[in-house]
Every structure is written in C-alpha cells, then in structure tokens.
C-alpha cells in the first residue's frame, strides 16, 4: 500500500515545485509591486499546500501529519498578513491619504 | 569553599544584588573588592602552604569538566585585580568630575572584576572564549558610560573585540578537532608541531593580540581608553588589557610545543620592541593627555611581549618573573597615571596637554602622582618598574648575542622617558591665571597618588617578591 502511495506522492510534489517556479518567475517578470505580491503569495501558498500534501502521503505516523498541517496553516496565515502589510505600506508610500496618519513613522 | 572561589563569587553576587535593588551606592562595590582582596590573600597563603590545587567544576573527571587551577600566580593576580578595583573604586566614589558617581559603573565594575577573576582561575580554552567575550562586552558598556561622544570608540572597540574572539574561537575549534580535548593542561602534553596546530596557534595568537591591543593591532585602544570616563580608563588599561595577555602567555609558555615557541619567540620580541618605540613616538606627538597615557599602555605592553618572546626563545625562568612583575608594576602605575590625568583634565577643564602648563602649581598632588607613576613606567629606581626591568635585563645581557634586545629595552626606556617628561617639563612652567570655575579636589588628588606610592612601595619588598616569584612553579 505504501509504495504506490509513495509513487503517487510524486504527482503533488512535482505540481508544488511547478507552482513555486511559476511564483518565482512571476516575481521576476511582473512590472509593479502589487502584481509581484499577488504572484508570490498566491503561487507559493498553493505550491506549499501541494508539497505538504505530497509529504503527508509519505509520512509514517499521524503525529507528523498533524505537525505538517499546522505548519501549512501558519504559513498561509503569515503569508497573507505579510502580503497585506506590504501592499498597504506601498499604497501609503504612493498616495498617503490625509485622514489616517501614515504607516511609516516620520524620521 | 575555596578562598579563590570566594574571591570570584563576591563581586559577582554583589553586582547582581546591586542591580536587583537598584542601588548605586559605591560602598557595596568597595566592600566587595575589599572582601575579594582578603579572600585572594587567603588563597595566596593557602597555595604557598600546600601547593597549587585543581578544582573540577561539577565534580566530573578531567577531560569533560571545566577545571579551575589555583596556583601562586593566579592567586597573586586575584589579589592584584581586587587591589586595583579597590583603589579605582575609592577614586570613582570620591571624584566629582568622572561620570561614575550615580551611574551603572558600580555593578559593571563588579562584573568586570568577576570575569577577570574567573579568567585567572580557568584552564579551559572555550571557557576563556566566553570570559573574554564577557570582558569585552563589560568594557564596552563601561566605555559607553561617557555619553554619546564615546559611542564611536565603543562601537569600534566592540567590533574588533568580537572579531578577535571569533579568530580565537576558530583556533580553539581547530585544536579541539585535532586533539579532541578542550582543557589546556591536558593539551600541554598532546600538542605536536604539525600544520594544523601551527595554524590554530597562529589564529589564536592573532585574536589575542588584537584583544590585548599588542603592537600591530592596537589602533582601537587609544580612542577607547581616552574616551572612557577616568575611572573606567584606569580599569581598562591596568587590568582588562592583561586578560588576553595572560591567555597568550599560558598558551605559548605552557601548552604550545617548544620548537613552535622557539620560532615564534623572536617575532613576538620584535613586535614588543616595535611597540615600545612606535607607541612611545605617537605618545610624544599626541595633543591630548589621556590619549598620551593610552599610547603609553600600548608601549608598556611591548615590555611584556618582549619578555614573552625571549622566554619562548631561551626558556629562561627569570623571564616569567620579569613578565609578571611588569604586569603588576604597569597595572598600578597606569591606574595612578590615568586617574591623575583624568583628574587634571577635569580640574583644568581641557583635554589638551598644553593645558597642563604650570600644573605643579594648579594641581600639585595630581601632577606629583603623574610624575611618580611615570617614574615607575620609565623604570627609575626604586620603583616596581625598575624591579621588572632589572629582572628582564639580566638574561638579555648574559651573552653578547642577546645584547641587541637589551638595546631595544634601552630605546623603550628613552621613549617612555620622552613622553613622561614631555608632560612634567611642561608642568614646571609658569601657570596661566586660574579659570573661574577652578576648584581642585585635594582628597581626590591624594587618592590618585595612592597606587603610585604602592608601585614605589613594591621596591621595598623587591628582593622577597623576586625570590618568591622565582621559586614559584609556573
């Protein structure tokens, strides 16, 4: 049972690697920061999900699976938050709206 | 409880308690250094009666545990450290000018004392790394007491100290990789002069020379020691610089194979003489008082380096005595000189040497302390410095082939005479009209004189001191 599962796990792993590659290409090629952020967070989270899935298939005991899932959730959370922060920081740099005091402190 | 451990524990415990109850009273530190001095003397007595002891920390057997070695020399160094802390503490408590009255100076100087005490006792290579790091950080914290103007010097000092520690650590890693033991006493009979050991010792020596500001790698010392508050620069020059020197001496004279020592000896001695001359020359030309005294530290360390180099070259036992007499005499003399320089600088209100014109009239006692300390640095009889030079010169003058090194000592003496008398000659000039806020503090000036009198007092017990130190095992 396990050997075909190991074979099968190659599929999500390769897919994950592909999405990582796509995200990186996006990072290098896209014109402005918003689209680059978009590429990175979307592609990498998906890539990570697939890699985690592949690894889960190869994992021996449930405890390892639980840890990997926890890692995946945390990565998704931090990825999303960071993307939000960067985007908002960039937006504030370009067009600081008057009412809210700017994100970056005055020097 | 071994008295040596008590001498180490007292300042450590005092520092923590002072921090805990946020007290800045000087009396705690002075009491701690006094108690530590008494414990050190007890340890000295115990060592002389029943020989040096080995303490295995944690009770594990030798290659695993860190070991403390309480020998006559380490007990003497403990007493010396406590004495210097006591003297400098008294001055720091009394002097109005130096920024140590109600600052963190007191707990930090206790930490400095504890780390130095543990350095003298330990024999473990990695333990020395952690202690040298602790020493460096405490010294940087103390230097930055002097406010923002000292931060640049403190930053450079910290970086170079970290780099030096990492050089040292790489050397220790290589030695551990090669021999599998961290204890220097065990290493002593395992070391062979192969390529790995030679490279490891080279890297370690570079690190330690950088930390002890020995000649080619000394550029960070003058700004750091001059920028620090008066009491701190006295501690730094008299003690902190000697820590890495102790490790260097321990490694080369006790651990390194003899033929490696014979190759390295002349290079060290040459660096020593170069230190004497070049640092002496820059001391003559620097316009600021405390920088002059700091350069004099670099110069005087040249004597110790010369003694170590010749010790490795010829293996003459007297050079051990000469080296450690220099360390003690220089410690006391430099402490007094820095305190006097700092006191004069703050009383006369200017950092320049030219402000010392007529100092014999305006700050007579501080100038007298400076002169007496300078006399010991030059090696005028009857001072501690003279004793050390007397013991150093004998092996140098034994055979005609050694005479060029004696010439080096002569040059060193003239160089130190030049920068000391540069100040003294100026001070006998007529004094300019006193500044409006000129109020000298005679008690503080007498306190600066105390270490200088001690270094000249060393001469009275000169014979017993030299004979005892010659008889002691190193």
């Amino acid at each position: 049972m396990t050997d075909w599962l190991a074979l099968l796990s190659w599929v999500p792993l390769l897919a994950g690697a592909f999405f990582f590659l796509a995200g990186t290409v996006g990072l290098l090629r896209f014109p402005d920061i918003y689209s680059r952020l978009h590429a990175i967070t979307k592609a990498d989270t998906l890539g990570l999900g697939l890699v985690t899935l592949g690894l889960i298939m190869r994992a021996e005991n449930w405890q390892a699976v639980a840890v990997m899932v926890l890692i995946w959730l945390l990565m998704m959370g931090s990825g999303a938050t960071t993307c939000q922060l960067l985007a908002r920081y960039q937006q504030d740099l370009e067009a600081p709206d008057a009412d809210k005091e700017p994100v970056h402190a005055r020097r | 409880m071994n008295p040596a451990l008590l001498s180490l524990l007292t300042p450590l415990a005092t520092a923590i308690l002072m921090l805990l109850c946020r007290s800045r009273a000087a009396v705690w530190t002075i009491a701690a250094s006094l108690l530590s001095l008494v414990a050190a003397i007890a340890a000295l007595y115990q060592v002389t009666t029943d020989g040096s002891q080995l303490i295995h920390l944690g009770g594990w057997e030798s290659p695993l545990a860190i070991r403390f070695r309480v020998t006559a020399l380490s007990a003497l160094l403990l007493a010396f450290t406590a004495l210097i802390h006591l003297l400098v503490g008294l001055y720091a408590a009394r002097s109005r000018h130096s920024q140590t009255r109600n600052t963190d100076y007191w707990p930090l100087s206790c930490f400095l004392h504890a780390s130095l005490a543990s350095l003298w006792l330990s024999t473990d290579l990695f333990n020395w790394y952690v202690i040298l790091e602790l020493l460096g950080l405490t010294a940087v914290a103390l230097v930055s007491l002097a406010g923002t103007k000292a931060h640049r010097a403190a930053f450079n000092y910290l970086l170079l100290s970290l780099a030096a520690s990492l050089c040292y650590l790489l050397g220790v890693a290589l030695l551990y990789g090669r021999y599998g033991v961290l204890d220097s006493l065990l290493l002593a009979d395992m070391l062979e002069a192969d390529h790995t050991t030679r490279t490891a010792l080279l890297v370690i020596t570079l690190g330690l020379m950088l930390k002890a500001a020995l000649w080619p790698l000394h550029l960070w010392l003058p700004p750091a020691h001059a920028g620090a508050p008066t009491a701190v620069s006295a501690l730094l020059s008299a003690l902190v610089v000697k820590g890495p020197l102790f490790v260097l001496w321990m490694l080369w004279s006790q651990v390194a194979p003899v033929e490696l020592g014979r190759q390295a000896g002349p290079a060290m001695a040459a660096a020593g003489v170069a230190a004497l001359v070049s640092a002496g020359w820059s001391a003559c030309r620097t316009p600021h008082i405390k920088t002059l005294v700091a350069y004099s530290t670099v110069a005087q360390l040249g004597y110790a380096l010369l003694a170590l180099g010749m010790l490795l070259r010829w293996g003459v036992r007297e050079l051990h005595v000469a080296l450690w007499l220099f360390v003690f005499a220089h410690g006391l003399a430099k402490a007094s000189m820095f305190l006097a320089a700092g006191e004069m600088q703050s009383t006369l209100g200017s950092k320049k040497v030219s402000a010392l014109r007529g100092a014999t009239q305006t700050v007579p006692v501080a100038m007298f302390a400076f002169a007496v300390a300078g006399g010991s640095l030059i090696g005028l009889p009857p001072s501690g410095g003279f004793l050390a030079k007397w013991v150093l010169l004998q092996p140098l003058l034994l055979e005609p082939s050694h005479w060029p090194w004696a010439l080096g000592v002569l040059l060193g003496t003239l160089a130190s005479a030049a920068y000391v008398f540069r100040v003294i000659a100026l001070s006998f000039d007529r004094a300019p009209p006193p500044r409006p806020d000129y109020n000298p503090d005679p008690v503080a000036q007498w306190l600066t004189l105390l270490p200088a009198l001690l270094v000249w007092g060393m001469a009275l017990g000169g014979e017993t001191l030299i004979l005892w130190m010659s008889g002691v095992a190193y």
Partner: protein
Amino acid sequence: MPDAEWLFDGTLGILLLVLAGAALHARSLYAAVVMFIALGLMLALTWARLGAPDLALAEAAIGAGVTGALLFSTLYKAGMDRHKRATPNRIALLLPGLAFLLLLTAAWPLPEMHSPLPDQVMAHLKDSGVSHPVTAVLLNFRAWDTLLEVSVVLIALLGVRQLYPSHGEVPTPWPLMLAWGRLLAPLTVIVGGYLLWRGTDAPGGAFQAGTVLAAGGVALRLIGVLPPLGWHQWPVRLLVLAGVLVFVAVAALTAWLGQGWLHYPTGSSKVLILLIELMATASIATTLTLLVVGEKRELRP
C-alpha cells in the same frame, strides 16, 4: 556520499556563500539586511542537515528572528542611507585566497580525528539528571560556561541601558496586525513552554524557548498590546536577573554546603536543572525583548 546528498549539500553550500556575499556587498542596506535574514534561515537548514536539531531551533529563533528584528529596527531608526560599495581590489582577494588555503589544509585531516568527550558524555548521561546529551553538557557538565553566557546577555542589556536609546513612536497598529498578533502570542507561549519541557530529553531547552518567547513578546510590544516594561518595576528586574541570580545561588550553595562549585547533589540534579532552565528562559525572554524594543522610558535607571 550517498547518491542525492551531494546535490543538496552543493546547492546549500553555494547558496550560503552567495547569500553571505550579497549581504556584504549589496547595493542598499535594506537589501543587505534581507539577504542576511535569508542567510540566517539557510544556516538553520544547514544545522538541521548536519544533525544538530538544537542548533537549528536556536539559529532559526535567534539568528533569523531576533537579529532580523533588531536589524530592521536599527535600519528603521537610523534611516536607510545609500551604501557606498566597497571596491574589492585584486590584492584584497589574494590574501583571503591564501588564508583559505592555509585554513583548509589545516582542517584537512580533522574529519578522521576522534575525541574521547562524546563517549564520556554518553557514559555519564544517566547520572547527569537529563537524558538529552546537549542539555546535559549545557547545564551540568559545563554549567559554568552557561552561567557566564547568561551573564553575557545581562551585560548586553546593561550596555544598551547606557545608550539611552531614543524611542521612535510606535505607529498605531492595523486591525489585521492586532488580530494576527493576538493569534500568534498564545501560540508562542505554548511552543516556548513545550520547548522548555522537552529540553530535558529531546532537542530544545532554555535558550530556544527563551528566544521564542522573546519573539512573542516583541510582536506583542510592537502591536501595542504589551505595556512598556519599565526597569523601575521590580518584577521586570527580577525577571531579567532571575537566570543569573538562581545560577549563582546554586553555584554558591553547592560550593559552600555541597561537595563543590556547581556540583549538584546526587538525585536532585534534574530538579535543579529544571529550575535553572525555567529561570534562564524567563530572563532570556525578558532581556531579549528589552534588547530589541527596549526604549529610553523603560530602560531609565
């Protein structure tokens, strides 16, 4: 080397060297700091690869986390001025090359060398009070090193106190950051506690736990949930000094009453080690937090 390992090691090694070169010679300080943090993570990976999980945990928490935060706060406070690139001239490259050869040839015979210490540690492991060898070495066989090291952390804090760091005002946090911070904080506490407890018989221990807690503390402090920890409040002082205080107390008592300096009485070593670890974790967490975000208000003598 088994088949695929050379590929992994090769890429990791080259990645490390490239990141280090980039960090030192980057065009802007910001880029240098980012490269450095990436280097920190790669180092954590290397320690894991070389079979040192304790180190991987410590490196990830300390190297990438705390140092990264510190770098960014320094960069943020001091302003990101342009970085004049050092012009590496040819001779400057020759010297490191020679040194590299010298050191490499020195290190060449080392992998075959054998050291008696690991077997001795294994032999004495059972009566050291803990079952994880690294923790046994850290807190029993070489406890004196650890005591000095904890006081190094304390001294660093004392040093920072003298600088009277100016407090850049903390911007009002966004709701998103508040939510994320509130989610992370309990998680760090749990992870910290777990690391501390597991330290006795698995990779983990005081330093890793303390750093994770410090990371949590910094996050909370930055989003304004954690009030400024004033040095004048005695609980903060007690927390900072706890590690060194307990360690010195244990050392003094064992030296005075027991058989010798840091010679734990038989049987009670596990309890003592746990006590010391707990205190060390608390003091490291507080000290690192103060080091990273400590402000003049808090550090006022």
